[in-house]
């Protein structure tokens, strides 16, 4: 028993052995994904290696390199073994989209402490921004041959979609930030529904959004004559945007702006007394958080080639909020984990369990786990609130090195 403790102790200190174990884990899980025909368990283990990576004591640089290697090379390769690569990649793309949205909502809810229950509205704005201009809808609207825009326009539209969402974030923020707490939650909930209903009804008198039928034949992204159409191709677009977002939020978290958000979350009056302008700082949180959602909205509409208002319901906003709460409000790795867990649960585990149950014991359709999504979210929320109120991975404060702090400041002139 004592030897076991000793062994664990050395293992915790020894980076090389951790690296080897992690490598073996990745090898085994990726090999099983490669050789087994559609095994959800193996795929989950492979994704789990990212979590394992988070908990190793490797240097930050090694973590980034291994993480990138996993995402860019190993996961696409491992899933290419069987016939179900596109299924896996579909899940990965959707997970990526949710992770980006959860990171955006984390700025608003986790950092700035503003409860937003209508966050999916910004996703809708991004999706419709690209959807309208890149589909025959624009031809009808502007009577111009210039539209629909070609697929190459997708790239600038990622930024335009983000920008539009940010604008709407500010437009929502200006009137809404007069109210606090529960009232803020109710008003944002209303805003989310208003956006959806407006898109649903903007087909008359002038047909802008094509109403409940939605927009179809949206152009797929194109670059140098190459068209992105498969999930495995969109995967790379999502990974790149996601990396930019993750690096962005990491830098924001410990910046002047990030500290101001947290100060407002902790105590508005004290924050104001320290010179922090409340409205401006909160509007930045709304705008930046919304822009992540907007960018992914553009990707979403380009990938599905179709958008309609039914994709942007209240349950989507709640799903994103559950991701943030489950992962840990204000914790970047936590929110990524929360988003991954919930989306994989939704997209894979629930459907797999349903398939398993219907094949083995015939259960009535109304009892199938895919229909119990809300119940499961409710249970998760209750369990988290009781047992881990700070989420799966608690937010950590930045630790400074006192020895470095004691040095003389360097003059910047």
């Amino acid at each position, binding site marked *: 028993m004592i030897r076991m403790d000793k062994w664990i102790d050395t293992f915790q200190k020894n980076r090389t052995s951790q690296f080897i174990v992690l490598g073996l884990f990745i090898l085994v899980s990726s090999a099983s994904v490669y050789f087994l025909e559609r095994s959800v368990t193996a795929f989950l283990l492979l994704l789990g290696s990212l979590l394992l990576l988070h908990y190793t004591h490797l240097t930050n640089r090694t973590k980034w390199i291994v993480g990138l290697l996993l995402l860019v090379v190993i996961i696409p390769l491992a899933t290419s073994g069987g016939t179900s690569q596109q299924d896996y990649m579909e899940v990965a793309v959707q997970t990526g989209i949710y992770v980006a949205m959860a990171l955006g909502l984390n700025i608003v809810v986790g950092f700035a402490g503003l409860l937003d229950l209508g966050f999916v509205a910004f996703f809708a704005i991004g999706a419709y921004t690209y959807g309208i201009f890149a589909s025959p809808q624009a031809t009808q609207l502007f009577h111009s041959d210039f539209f629909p825009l070609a697929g190459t326009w997708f790239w600038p539209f990622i930024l335009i979609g983000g920008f539009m969402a940010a604008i709407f974030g500010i437009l929502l923020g200006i009137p809404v930030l007069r109210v606090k707490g529960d009232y803020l939650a109710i008003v944002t909930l209303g805003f989310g529904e208003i956006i959806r209903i407006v898109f649903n009804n903007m087909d008359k008198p002038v047909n802008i959004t094509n109403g409940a039928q939605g927009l179809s034949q949206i152009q797929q992204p194109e670059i140098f004559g190459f068209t992105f159409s498969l999930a495995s191709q969109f995967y790379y677009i999502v990974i790149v945007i996601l990396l930019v977002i993750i690096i962005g939020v990491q830098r924001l978290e410990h*910046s002047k702006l990030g500290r101001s958000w*947290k100060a407002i979350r902790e105590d508005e009056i004290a924050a104001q007394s320290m010179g922090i302008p409340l409205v401006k700082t909160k509007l930045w949180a709304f705008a930046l958080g919304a822009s992540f959602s907007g960018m992914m909205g553009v990707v979403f509409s380009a990938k599905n080639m179709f958008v309609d208002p039914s994709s942007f319901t209240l349950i989507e906003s709640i799903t994103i909020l559950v991701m943030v709460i489950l992962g840990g409000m204000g914790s970047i790795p936590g929110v990524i984990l929360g988003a991954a867990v919930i989306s994989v649960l939704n997209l894979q585990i629930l459907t797999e369990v349903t398939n398993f149950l219907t094949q083995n014991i015939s259960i009535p359709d109304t009892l199938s786990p895919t229909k119990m999504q809300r119940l499961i979210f409710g249970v998760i929320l209750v369990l988290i609130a009781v047992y881990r109120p700070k989420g799966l991975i608690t937010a950590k*404060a930045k630790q400074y090195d006192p020895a470095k702090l004691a040095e003389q400041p360097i003059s910047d002139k």
Partner: protein
Amino acid sequence: MSLLQIKGLTKQFGGLTAVNQVDISIRPKSITAIIGPNGAGKTTLFNLITGIYKPDKGSISLAGTSLLNRKPNQIAGLGIARTFQNIRLFKEMTALENILVGMHNHLTSNLFGTLFRLPRVRLEEQNAAKHAYQLLETVHLADKCNELSKNLSYGEQRRLEIARALATKPKILFLDEPAAGMNPKETKELTDLITQIRNDFDLTIILIEHDMKLVMKISEEIIVLDYGQRIASGNPDEIRTNPRVIEAYLGKGAVS
């Protein structure tokens, strides 16, 4: 020449006049204590000056600049910092981060610089952290720099609040009951600290305090409020013997 000039300041909450026609004039680099029985309007006065409440009547000016119709963050930018009666630290942030928040107005980084991590922004952040550490040393909390502020002891939290207020580089520092809940030893240390920061930072200090030993020891000027009105002002000796002050604290008949 007075640094802070208050004239005819009045604030009503419904039928209650919390602050009534108060005139105050504060000399630069002085330590002034505001005392008075509970409910005399001392904290309300602080909240009026720092912009948390809007006065009904009267004027407040700092070195000739009117503070009326300004938001608390703008008033902080003009050089007024404060601590709170019921400690208002940023609980889930470390001691060092609390101070960095206090430096808000003196950091120039913008969104672009932060996202691209420009060398200028990185240097500014490093220097800010070092300055924050020096402030923690001033209040003897350097060894707690990475501690969440909610985990500090009561006396430490009070000192951290003072350091956080100093980080805004104020002209006037308002301390709302800085010694509340402290034991005699801590109060003694606090007394020394207040005098020390006044000298080191060239500050004007205004404090609300119930601990008369502390008040009599450090203040050069004392203002007494009762029922929202200024009933007396003067140096500690004058206040100690002022019959109206004794009456306010001990009731009619106590003087004779």
